[in-house]
């Protein structure tokens, strides 16, 4: 693919212009702004990547464009000028948020991929009905046709068995599959503008590459403008034409991708890029496990099958072999990475270990005892020792509890502390993960995606466990915070001998953090070994394919590498 020519050509009229946009939340005791007077523009056929620290207002900006700022947010100023055909601009911010005019634009002309796909899909409707609905709404086709198109879209986003998948529900999908369903939905109407809010956080790099190709294809064919919010600088380097950098609600820097990467002006951008470099090697501070460390966790022949009951009056149910014979050992003080294709059963393995599911077959030995068949008391004790960081932070936070209550919960139920001590402890934990303790009386929905992820991390480390199963714990964090959170975890590892099962799609994070890696494919571990060894000398063809797809965080290297795919043992 030829490098896309640098475009500083601001003469072509932008399709969407954000002017002095200010978004605020009017809380009970007065309003405050989270986005301050930002300006940027999107152009047809161009990709604008938005990067910035977690909580800097990226998602809010994105939502403001569609005029769906979450309550009690309001657009406090500025204009959003949308001009798809060069005939004259409409100010989206001025439209009635429930009116017809904006409705015609939403989904049809400007589509959006929400940051948390897990919670953003309706729990009670099939994936298919949600996609078909979008198609029917904006494209003049019949129901049958729409369904065919939806199947096609799911196939394009690499969902296996798309025809069946249409009739499944969101909770039956893995995190990455939901995200892809979301993408399919957004792309279904061939929008003029695509706003993608961290759309690939849950995707393994091979799938991610395919998705990015898909977007690029559409962009090429239909001149779509893309606003792409991401923390993955590799993706930025691969994809972006322009880059917008945000910090604390302000737009601190914007410009051509090359310019940003080669000559960052703003200190935040510089720090960001520095962090990217840092994450490109194994952590300096990492304490490696001694070879004679005891295995703390041994998983043997683990199987977990989901038996899908038949539809109410439908045909017979089928079985999904989410985990199909996995063997793993985790040593004390070790960090074991799990990588693998989206939907390959990583989360499910993690959940089995944490005791969320009753396993179908196999043993999980913790400290030599099989916890898959443990008694009640033992299970409770184990829960203190094995903690889990959920892939979908939003869903795992009780919407009716404040952050303080959420983090305090394990401390309270395990009778660890109370009163002032509890307060301090919670504040301490929040500070450790980089959140202002003053926010502790807020409810989860009032945080940004990255902030929520950190809350989940704080909850997991609160009890001082021996094993943490971390399912994509840093995917929503910008690189600088990500490295800090990882460092924090490393510190715990060093100080308390904490062990990790670390599920991630980000190879650099794996490399930075993990001693060993297991590569999963279709419910099995296909390769396991020392991190460095796997990265430098992968054996299994899937691993090779995976590594070949890792985006490189340098725009100059764009297209220089030969990517290849693993087509699987044809299931």
């Amino acid at each position: 693919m030829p490098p896309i020519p640098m475009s500083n050509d601001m003469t072509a009229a932008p399709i969407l212009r954000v002017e002095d946009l200010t978004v605020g939340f009017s809380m009970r005791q007065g309003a405050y702004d989270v986005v301050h007077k930002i300006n940027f523009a999107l152009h047809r056929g161009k990709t604008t990547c938005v990067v910035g620290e977690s909580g800097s207002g990226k998602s809010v900006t994105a939502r403001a464009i569609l005029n769906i700022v979450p309550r009690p947010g309001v657009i406090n100023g500025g204009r959003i000028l949308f001009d798809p055909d060069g005939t004259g601009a409409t100010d989206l911010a001025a439209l009635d948020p429930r009116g017809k005019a904006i409705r015609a634009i939403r989904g049809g002309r400007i589509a959006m991929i929400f940051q948390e796909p897990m919670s953003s899909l309706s729990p009670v409707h099939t994936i298919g009905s949600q996609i078909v609905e979008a198609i029917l709404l904006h494209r003049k086709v019949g129901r049958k046709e729409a369904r065919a198109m939806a199947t096609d879209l799911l196939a394009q986003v690499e969902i296996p068995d798309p025809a069946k998948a249409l009739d499944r529900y969101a909770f039956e999908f893995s995190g990455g599959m939901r995200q892809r369903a979301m993408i399919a939905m957004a792309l279904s109407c061939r929008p003029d503008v695509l706003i993608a809010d961290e759309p690939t956080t849950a995707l393994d790099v091979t799938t991610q590459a395919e998705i990015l190709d898909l977007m690029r294809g559409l962009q090429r064919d239909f001149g779509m403008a893309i606003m792409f919010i991401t923390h993955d600088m590799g993706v930025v380097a691969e994809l972006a034409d322009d880059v917008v950098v945000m910090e604390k609600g302000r737009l601190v820097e914007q410009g051509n991708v090359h310019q940003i990467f080669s000559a960052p002006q703003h200190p935040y951008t510089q720090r960001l890029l520095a962090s990217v470099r840092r994450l490109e090697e194994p952590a300096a501070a990492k304490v490696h496990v001694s070879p004679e460390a005891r295995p703390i966790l041994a998983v043997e022949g683990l199987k977990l099958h989901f038996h899908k009951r038949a539809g109410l009056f439908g045909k017979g149910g089928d079985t999904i072999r989410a985990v199909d014979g996995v063997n793993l050992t985790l040593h004390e003080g070790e960090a074991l990475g799990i990588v693998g294709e989206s939907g390959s059963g990583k989360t499910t393995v993690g959940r089995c270990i944490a005791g969320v599911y009753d396993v179908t077959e196999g043993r999980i030995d913790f400290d030599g005892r099989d916890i898959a068949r443990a008694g009640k008391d033992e299970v409770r004790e184990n829960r203190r020792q094995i903690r889990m960081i959920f892939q979908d932070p939003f869903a795992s936070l009780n919407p009716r509890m404040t952050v303080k209550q959420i983090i305090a919960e394990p401390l309270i139920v395990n009778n660890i502390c109370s009163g002032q001590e509890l307060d301090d402890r919670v504040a301490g934990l929040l500070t450790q993960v980089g959140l202002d303790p003053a926010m502790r009386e807020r409810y989860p929905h009032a945080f940004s995606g990255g902030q929520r992820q950190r809350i989940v991390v704080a909850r997991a480390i609160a009890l001082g466990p021996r094993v943490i199963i971390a399912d994509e714990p840093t995917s929503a964090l910008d690189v600088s915070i990500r490295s800090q959170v990882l460092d924090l975890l490393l510190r715990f590892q060093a100080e308390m001998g904490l062990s990790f099962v670390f599920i991630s799609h980000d190879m650099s994070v794996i490399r930075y953090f993990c001693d060993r890696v297991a590569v999963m494919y279709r419910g099995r571990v296909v390769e396991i070994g020392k991190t460095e060894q796997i990265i430098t000398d992968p054996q299994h063809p899937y691993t090779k394919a995976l590594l070949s797809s890792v985006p490189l965080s340098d725009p100059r290297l764009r297209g220089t590498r030969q990517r290849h795919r693993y087509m699987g043992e044809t299931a």
Partner: protein
Amino acid sequence: MSDLSDTSGAATTGADRIAVASQSQLIWWAFRKHKLAMAGLVITVILYLIGAFAEVLSPEDPNDQDRRAVFQPPQMIHFVDTSAGFSIRPYVYAMERHRDPTSLAVTYTASDRKIYLHLFGKGAPYVFWGLIPGDLHLLATEDPSDRVFLFGADRLGRDMFSRVLYGTRISMSIGLVGVAISLILGVTLGGISGYYGGWVDTAIQRVIEFILSLPTIPVWLALAAALPPSWPIYQQYFVITLIISLVGWTELGRVVRGRFLALKNEDFVIAARLDGASEARIIFRHMLPSLTSHIIASLTLAIPLMILAETGLSFLGLGLQPPAISWGVLLKEAQNIRTISQAPWLFIPGLFVVFSVLAFNFLGDGMRDAADPYEQ
């Protein structure tokens, strides 16, 4: 770690006060902002105060019959007395009864005689809460042989105003007991049923089904016969309330179960389980708040039903019987054509029911909103 502390986002600036307020404080602020909810709270409190001090607040003995006042319409209080110059001295005009010998209809004509009223005068003796004897009334006629009927009089010539005030006591309290019992049972059993599923669910559901399958009327009739007649009325009613709520929990139980079946696999519930929370805690602390709105709504709906239960039950010879006084009893007594056509003031207790119900409801609204995280 030092560079992390300032990354908490733009949020904190300018909003310190919110940020540090505790959840309960937040809820209280949220509640206080809700004007109608505050009004509801105030009315509710006033009603309870009326209930508590009915003896003192009512000008008459609610059971005092007076043949001269049968179906007497309400009397207006006049405040300004111009008979002997200008003075502020509340009074009402005495009324005279006239009965038509053939149609038997009674009519009242206001006479010129003024019945003067004063605050904290002596009147009919009472025993406050059955404990402290007294005879002080907030409003009393200056001449104790006179009577005043602010809400008119009923068919036995009893003062409706006093009766309504006395009725407040039972109506505002006894319903709450029933509601509380069905709440506790409904939430606990429904919660357990939905949370555990499986045979526990089946068992509880069959119990609910069984309770519901027994039509209510035979139950009431059997009860009417079974309750010993020598029991004091209040005790009988208490038992009836208890039984209403023993049946009433099932509805809430089903709803809680239905929602729990869907909720129990949510990640945040699993997270709570992984936190090591006990099952009771998961049910009550983690899952139940998701149903706050529904529960508040059904409670505010249950209260009027409880208050009015007697009007329906009385058909079966159940419920409170005179001389006990409650709004339900008063309304029950008013349920006839004669009242509709000739003595509409006997429906005033109905207004009180509506008021209290609206008050409870707005109170509930406020509570719901205050507890809603999205409203913060």
